[in-house]
């Protein structure tokens, strides 16, 4: 079978943030440093090699980039300063773009202008839309109740429609991811039983980020876990308890305690991440792609305006609360519509899926290898 090499692949990856890939001289120091480098997944050097050789199709089928959490050990120990950690990060961005059938993700990653314009346009449309709708049927003095400016019942409906669209988009891309990495791979014949047996991996790795915890330094994992759990809590609250959240002005502690905790979690982790990126405190913060900033900025806007509308509403300032709510939605909608399927947020689906698929595929690969290989090449011990 002919293998196509793309000699411009490194240049393409540089648009996604890759640094100094061509400096690598393949000493294998990075793979030996990495706690996740276990056969059949050897990372990150194998990806560096594939990149240098321009093996686009092979990289598209690789799960290795998703098994890396960018602890940065490899980049720190790299004798060539070839930045393997940043390469894995940029490969994740590139893969996100390639899984996305619309091509929008690729556009956003390659051009920060396109992303900013898209976010601003969606934010403006959202703002105008909700204002028009609010004025057409409600009263700006009313946050809650029969004449509410933005009645939670209808907003709820809007949420569910948006969620459905997102699930379709992200789901299609997840299926594409499965196809590229496992489905089309003739070397890894995965049995149906294996898919079922390993299914526990999806919720398990999503909720605990257990693999991330295997990195030598635990702080990045902890931050990530707090951010993810806060986000998840907020998502559950909004999808199922929006009515209770908006009701007031008295505080309903059954839901609000969760809401406030989640907001605190989101704000703290976002501020810490922003500070880290500005001061470059962690290896993973040394190079920031524009999409990383967009992610943090939207998150900060959404979390702070969410808190603001809560405070304003409880203080009886319904007009201000309604305005804060509109601004909040102007952050939420672009974040969900653009960032979740087409940018950094997508990893919330790809990462656990990759861990699941990697587990399933590894089993098949090992079985295949045992069937095929005669004697191992191992030095006699």
């Amino acid at each position, binding site marked *: 079978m002919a293998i196509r090499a793309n000699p411009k692949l490194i240049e393409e990856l540089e648009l996604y943030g890759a640094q100094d890939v061509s400096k690598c001289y393949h000493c*294998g*120091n990075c793979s*030996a*440093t990495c706690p996740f480098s276990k056969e059949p997944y050897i990372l990150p050097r194998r990806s560096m090699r594939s990149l240098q050789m321009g093996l686009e199709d092979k990289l598209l089928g690789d799960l290795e980039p998703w098994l890396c959490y960018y602890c940065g050990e490899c980049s720190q120990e*790299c004798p060539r300063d070839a930045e393997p950690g940043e390469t894995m990060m940029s490969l994740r961005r590139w893969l996100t773009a390639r899984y996305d059938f619309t091509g929008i993700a690729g556009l956003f990653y390659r051009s920060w202008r396109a992303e900013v314009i898209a976010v601003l346009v969606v934010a403006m449309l959202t703002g105008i839309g909700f204002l028009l709708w609010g004025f057409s049927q409600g009263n700006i003095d009313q946050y809650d109740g029969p004449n509410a400016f933005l009645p939670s019942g209808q907003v709820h409906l809007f949420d569910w429609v948006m969620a459905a669209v997102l699930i379709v988009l992200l789901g299609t891309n997840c299926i594409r991811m499965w196809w590229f990495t496992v489905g089309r791979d003739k070397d890894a014949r995965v049995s149906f039983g294996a898919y079922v047996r390993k299914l526990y991996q999806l919720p398990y790795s999503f909720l605990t980020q257990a693999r991330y915890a295997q990195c030598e330094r635990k702080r990045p994992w902890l931050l990530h876990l707090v951010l993810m759990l806060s986000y998840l809590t907020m998502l559950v609250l909004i999808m199922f308890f929006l009515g209770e959240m908006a009701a007031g002005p008295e505080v309903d502690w059954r839901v609000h305690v969760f809401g406030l905790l989640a907001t605190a979690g989101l704000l703290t982790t976002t501020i810490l991440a922003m500070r880290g990126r500005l001061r470059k405190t962690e290896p993973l913060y040394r190079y920031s792609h524009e999409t990383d900033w967009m992610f943090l900025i939207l998150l900060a806007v959404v979390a702070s305006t969410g808190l603001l509308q809560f405070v304003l509403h409880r203080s009886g300032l319904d007009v201000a609360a309604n305005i804060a709510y509109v601004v909040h939605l102007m952050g939420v909608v672009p974040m969900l519509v653009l960032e979740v399927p087409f940018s950094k947020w997508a990893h919330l689906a790809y990462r656990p899926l990759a861990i699941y698929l990697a587990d399933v595929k590894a089993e098949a690969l090992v079985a295949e290898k045992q069937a095929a290989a005669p004697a191992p090449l191992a030095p006699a011990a």
Partner: protein
Amino acid sequence: MRIGVYVCQTGTGDLDSVSSHAVTSYAANLPSVEIVEDLGTLPTLDIAALATQLRDARLDRVVIAGDSPGFFKPAFTAAMARAGGDPEEVRLASFKEHGASTGVGTSRAKSVVACAVLGVPFPLAAVPATTAVHPGTLVVGGGIAGIQAALEIADAGKQVLLVERTATIGGHMAMFDKTFPTLDCAACILTPKMVAVGQHESIELMTYSEVESVAGDPGDYKVTIRRKARRVDADSCVACTACADVCPSRVPSEFDNGIADRKAIYIPFPQAVPNAYLIDGEACTYVQSDGAKCGVCARKCPKGCIDLDQEDELVAFEVGSIVLATGYDVYDATRIERYGYGTLPNVLTALEFERLTNASGPTGGKIVTKSVRRNKKTKADEWVFDAENGVSPRSVAIVHCVGSRDANHNPYCSRVCCMYSLKFAHLVREKLPEADCYEFYIDMRAFGKGYEEFAERIKAEGTFVVRGRTAKVTEQDGAMIVRGEDILSDRMVDFPVDMVILAVGLVPAEGNRRIADQLGLAVDSDGWFSELDYNADPTDTERGGVYVCGVCQGPKDIPDTVAQASAVAAGVLKGIATGRSRDSLASLSLSDIEKRAADLVEL
């Protein structure tokens, strides 16, 4: 003739002292120069645009000036060819090669550009005047380089003063067991030379001494040597060991790289030259207590040659030439924590292993792992090599490039580590045929005569040669695990081993910079002495009458060191034979070089 000068830098090396602005404005005023452009650091050269520019300006010659202009030559040659010009007329003005890093920075860079513009090789134009030369020579450093140079000069009948910092000559080579690739016994080659130095009537040997200061001019240097207090009269000592037998103080032996102890009164090794004891004042109870305690060695000495109260003394000499052969230190392996050196007992450096496997070493050449012994004095357990009860390792891992070829440590290749690592594998397998031996390498640099064959031989002998750098050595249940990626068979390896040998790289000896400052010499960005011209004058320096040889000029193996040491002798003897030696290059002014270059063009 129409000439274009392009300044392009690669940004490597210490060339901060060169002002590229001053160089460009100087070049613009040179005759026939039509275009001068400063393209900055690592410019992206568009060959088509460059060719158009060269054609439009009708340039006959292009000069690329910069720290390493050869880097950009292919682009300019292609552009010149495309413009229809003569590709041979792309000339280089290399600041780095011609020593523009030495304080004379900008003016040297200007003269290098002037020569390139005129089409005259810089070394032809920059020839300093000669000075009268004193027939004596100072050789600094008594390793194989210094020994060879001293013998060559002394055998020609000229007086040599050989100064060595430690108590014996021999240097690192005396510690080695075998040489590569011939597996000759290192001592068998070195010891006769050491003895010859000790007995030579034309060599004044000063061990345990250091160069205190250097004054004077090329051909007529006045040097002061600090003769450190040896406290034992080397001429009358017969090395009977009576003193060491009674000495109560033990410290790690430098010669054995700390894997064995010596007394405070000691002889570095039995074949030392001079074969005499000395007292280490830092460890001596008598010296440390200002004469209040001990002194038992002086009472025991049958020859009465111990003078415990001796002090350092300064001795002045006049010499015409100075040969620097100061050698190297090995990279400090404790700086790479993940290899566990200093925390895991059986992780050794290359020099420690040399002593372990050496038949004259502490274990008599028996390769054993360290075992625990109770120190009676401190009541603590310590790890030591025990020749009788020690266990032979069942597997040994050798890690290449420790501290070398690494942006986090030393960027350069230390040149000898691949070969000595292969030699180690051979020695391990020769003495312990049952033991597994793993070599972790990045690239196998077997560049010398017979080296590649040697590498193939070691592989054929059954050493497992793994292409992949080890990232870490960890301890698991008392065993060490060496983790790496075997790149050629595409898998991760975790080998349990009993011993790890770190192939530490070479670094300039501790005192190199001090000597460079004393003599006004340049060192390169890695700290090695800068030679006058990398290709044409590899043993001369910027300073007239000062020569370099051996590893202090750059990492090299024993054959290359010996060859360079002999080459140095030729330079020194040429000066003595003609009675004239070259003055320092710094004595030449820009106008001198310009004038001479112009004269050469007219010829």
